[in-house]
């Protein structure tokens, strides 16, 4: 048995010995390597091995279950015994909660986990030099695109290899390995005394799944160059096209809105809207924990329940919330296998691979179909209120006149109510892109307020 498995089992036994009626434990071990090259120089090389163990102790009483979480990076027997006892003592100080506790059943069979292509063992051989080389190639490619690319924040290559063990007192003990790799470039373009930075990133479970360093550098440079000469526009109401990168942020917000926790707390304007139309008919949004090679894929969730596909929005209707066991009990549903868990945090809910189904039009066709409007390529700030749906964020992008890109814009905001944005989606592109755990094609919202001069 691995060290990690035995540490997890020792944690459970210690918690039970200290008086817990039930417990679970998560152990995470990771090796990581991160490098940055800027110009021709190495900026930094960073390496680490980390291990962390978290325990949740559950103490059943007459009116419900009390719980607490403790964690440590010291996996010695003495330390594990101490934090297990501490978790039980801490739990005893909290209130009884009828909804708290482990899932009753439905655990995945840990001996027959789905093969999800979460890593390639051969990638462990890629060392510091290979990472520096990839970053350097991306950096050179970016600078070679145009003489106006004069500087950069650097190009980064990183890899991490993790092993995750989850065990609970209901008898579940599962483990899996997962890797992730990323390569990014952040060049700066300069002209007429002003500077613009942009970036591009590729991320995958295996090195073979990454875009080439040259493609990353080139794409990043092209994005920075097209921002040169950006200006404000006069305040107006126009259609707004989100490119796949910025559109993904809309679905990230939906993931927060449909989290069972936001629903039972009443901190989501989508609470109580199950089965109702919340978006235009063309919107099909699915969370798929089993997507092969997906950055959010895992063979079981943070409570040991099987990974699955959940349709969140089906033809514009809110089809499902995302639930773990606790929030399912609170809203009166069943877990959707959406539990997240880390060594130092309580179980929660998170999307895994959340993707919007693509439409048939290319981004160019959507632009050609827009007489006057905005193509958003960057959003900044956190101007979103999930309780009311009020949305107002800083933006930069490209202005559209007569169905064609006219000039770059910056120092503007885009604002609307998010509920109206979802129902106002009137075009979805064919250009589905997965750069993170959220995938999206371009999306056009019929009308938003653009504030500028």
């Amino acid at each position, binding site marked *: 048995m691995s060290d990690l498995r035995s540490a997890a089992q020792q944690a459970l036994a210690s918690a039970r010995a200290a008086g817990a009626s039930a417990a679970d434990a998560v152990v995470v071990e990771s090796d990581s390597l991160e490098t940055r090259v800027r110009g021709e120089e*190495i*900026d*930094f*090389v*960073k*390496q*680490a091995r*980390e291990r962390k163990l978290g325990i949740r102790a559950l103490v059943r009483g007459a009116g419900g279950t009390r*719980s*607490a*979480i*403790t*964690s*440590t*990076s*010291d996996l010695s027997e003495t330390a594990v015994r101490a934090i297990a006892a*501490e978790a039980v003592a801490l739990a005893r*100080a*909290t*209130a009884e*909660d009828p909804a*708290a506790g482990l899932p009753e059943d439905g655990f995945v069979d840990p001996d027959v986990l789905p093969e999800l292509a979460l890593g390639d063992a051969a990638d462990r051989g890629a060392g510091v030099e290979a990472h520096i080389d990839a970053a350097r190639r991306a950096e050179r490619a970016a600078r070679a695109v145009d003489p106006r690319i004069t*500087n*950069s*924040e650097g190009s980064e290559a990183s890899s991490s290899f993790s092993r995750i063990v989850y065990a609970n007192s209901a008898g579940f003990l599962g483990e899996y390995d997962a890797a992730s790799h990323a390569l990014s470039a952040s060049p700066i373009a300069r002209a007429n005394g002003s*500077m*613009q*930075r942009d970036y591009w990133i590729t991320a995958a479970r295996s090195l073979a799944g990454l875009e080439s360093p040259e493609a990353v550098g080139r794409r990043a440079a092209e994005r920075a160059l097209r*921002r040169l000469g*950006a200006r404000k526009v006069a*305040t*107006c*109401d126009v259609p707004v096209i989100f490119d796949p990168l910025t559109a993904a942020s809309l679905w990230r917000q939906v993931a927060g809105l449909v989290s069972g926790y936001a629903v039972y*707390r*009443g901190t989501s*304007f989508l609470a109580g809207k199950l089965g109702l139309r919340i978006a235009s008919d063309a919107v099909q949004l699915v969370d798929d924990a089993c997507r092969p090679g997906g950055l959010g894929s895992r063979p079981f969730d943070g409570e040991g329940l099987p990974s699955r596909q959940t349709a969140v929005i089906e033809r514009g209707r809110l089809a499902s919330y995302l639930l773990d066991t606790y929030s399912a009990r609170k809203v009166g549903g069943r877990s959707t296998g959406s539990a997240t868990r880390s060594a*130092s*945090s*309580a179980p929660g809910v998170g999307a895994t691979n959340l993707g919007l189904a693509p439409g048939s039009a290319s981004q160019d066709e959507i632009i050609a179909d827009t007489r006057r409007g905005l193509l958003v390529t960057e959003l*900044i*700030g956190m*101007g979103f*209120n999930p*309780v*009311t749906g*009020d949305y*107002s*964020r*800083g933006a*930069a992008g490209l202005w559209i006149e007569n169905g064609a890109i006219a000039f770059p814009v910056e*120092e*503007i*905001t885009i*604002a609307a*109510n998010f509920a109206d944005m979802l129902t106002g989606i009137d075009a979805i592109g064919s250009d589905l892109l997965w750069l993170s755990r959220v995938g999206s094609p371009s999306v056009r919202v019929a009308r938003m*307020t*653009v*504030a*500028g*001069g």
Partner: protein
Amino acid sequence: MTLPGSFFRDRFGLDDQRLGDALDTALERRVDYADLFFEYTAQDSVVLEEGIVKSGDRHLEQGVGVRAQVGERQGYAHADEVSVEALQIAARTARAISADPGAGGRAAVATGAAQRDLYPVARPPTDVDVAQKISLVEAIDRYARSRDPRIVEVMASCVCQHRSVLVIGSDGTQAEDIRPLVRLNVQVIAQRGARREVGYQGCGGRSGFESLLEPARWQGLVDEAVRTALLNLEAEPCPAGSMTVVLGPGWPGILLHEAIGHGLEGDFNRKETSAFSGRLGERVAAPGVTVVDDGTLPGRRGSLNVDDEGTPSQRTVLIEDGILRCYLQDRLNARLLGMAPTGNGRRESYAHLPMPRMTNTFMLAGQDDPADILRSVDRGIYAVNFGGGQVDITSGKFVFSASEAYRIEGGRIGAPLKGATLIGNGPDVLLRVSRIGSDLELDRGVGTCGKDGQSVPVGVGLPTLRIDDLTVGGTEG
């Protein structure tokens, strides 16, 4: 006061010989500087919702980071095991950044002089029994619900942290710092008919848990959260476009943090990627505008006795009467720019490389009566509270989002407005400051700054300020 380093020596069985050996290993090739950073952090929190504390948590984190610098290169390795073996492995990994087989020089590890303590506590906040923390958030819940029948939900949390750090550098630097940090958050939801609105307030600082128990303090916090939520029930859509904005005192100082502060960090200026690069000595703000970063304020959330490279924190004048005077520096960027470190080398934890970061950043008070400033505006908005903000260092564009704002009409405060994002250009926004209030306030101690994936606690402050022509991102043309 304990001798510097004694906590770590005792806990991990380290002595001068072993620490010196680890530094020597890091210095076995030609490197300019090497340091060791030890950390031991305890953190606990309790969260109340639906009237009960459903769960508590407590975390212990310990580790060591070893860094080697050669020119502008840095090698870094960290481990969560604090042992002689782990230290040696990390030191060998970090020094690999240097290809040159020569040897770096090392000064003897000096026993540091007793330092000032900006945040002494009688008892670490993480040593206080959890029952007391639970009682406090329960009292907050009862008090909030008693304020108004429209308050339908209360969420309250109390987070306590106690962090010990030890820095040992190849130039003989040795500094230990023990940093308490407490924080109280209150969020309420008010409902009238189908309309729901949220109100939020938080407070905290580098102090003991006891500082949160003062009833006037936590009740004031709840009163503010309740008032904001009820006010938002009446809020109208915010106008869109360029207009005069008056910022209230205190937390709106986030403007300085985003518009100016990040752009003055030494790394961006050394790399010449900031919109402020090469502009020392130039006018970047209106006459009368003086902005400082001060890590030496007793008990403040952003304060530090020494930064995470062992440099004592200081008060740094960034902008003096409108003229750009200084950047914020860590050791690496100060050395490369030929400037002095300013005590702003900070890192989230042992698992991160230090970078130049802000501490408490604020504008000094001016001469104007705040009421006169409001009266001077014919049409505009008055923004008194904010959520988060963000900046694009290179283009200089920044945003920050109002969570409490009002219309100003004919010099009087009018209807409350729904939150909206304000956007501007860092290098010129302060040139359009036309009135500076006499009422400087610092925030209540809730700021967290994110940069390059690292979060650190910070403070901000501002007097009432009038800015002409800022773009307001509402929905009403």
